[in-house]
């Protein structure tokens, strides 16, 4: 069975690689390279796969899941400038893909029960763009 919990956070970012020139950054990232940054209302969907525990009837305790998502993602990232305030984005370009990879890393270790595991995270940067990541190489 799949269980999905949603969370939102609002953050600013800029997509620039300091090793590249202005023109190259502009070509690669378009308006996302504007030097002072811009923001999004990110929406995160965390999906866990597992069997309900025979005693509790739950795949994963939703209150605990909410606390994990807040501690690992929402509290450190909400109303922050990712490049300046949320490592590793001081040295990794915070594209939607890289933010999703970082969120997976943060959540994966904490969502591991004998009966349940992290299956997928979906990160919406806008309503028209999202990435799915399930831990694949």
């Amino acid at each position, binding site marked *: 069975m799949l269980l999905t919990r949603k969370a939102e956070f609002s953050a600013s970012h800029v*997509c620039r*690689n300091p090793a590249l020139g202005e023109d190259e950054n502009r070509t*690669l*990232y*378009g308006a996302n390279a504007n030097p002072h940054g811009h923001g999004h209302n990110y929406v995160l969907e965390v999906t866990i796969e597992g069997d309900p525990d025979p005693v509790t009837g739950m795949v994963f305790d939703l209150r605990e899941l909410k606390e994990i998502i807040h501690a690992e993602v929402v509290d450190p990232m909400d109303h922050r400038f990712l490049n300046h305030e949320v490592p590793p984005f001081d040295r*990794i*370009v*915070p*594209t*939607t*893909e*890289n933010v*999703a*990879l970082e969120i997976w890393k943060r959540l994966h270790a904490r969502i591991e029960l004998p009966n349940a595991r992290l299956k997928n995270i979906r990160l919406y940067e806008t*309503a*028209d*763009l*999202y*990435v*799915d*990541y399930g831990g*694949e*190489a």
Partner: protein
Amino acid sequence: MTLTRRYRFAASHRLNSDALTPEENARLYGKCNNPFGHGHDYVLDVSVEGAVNDTGQIVDRQALDTLVQERVLGRVDHRNLNCDLPELQSRVATTENQAFAIERMLAREWTLPARLARVRISETARNTFELETK
């Protein structure tokens, strides 16, 4: 990793099968068989799959947008699909057949490094058709 990008287009169509009589078409397709056609604001989700490259991306958004615009949106937006889309001339213009046609329009000369993974079309907010590509 999979990246999904959402696009929109407005188009009209009419459901009518050459293999059926006018009465059978009217019965099967109901209002969708109206001879003058009707339209929708379609939502098209295109998913590409691949590894994150050294720019931190699976695919360049502008390159994906340009490809979808040139191959699909430029040909279907504000068009009558029955009249203006040769790919649907010999088929009923159902959203199922539109999904197959759009998948072929995209895949035929796919020039992006990430793999085309899925095409999903919503005819209205209530009807969605999804095609996994091989």
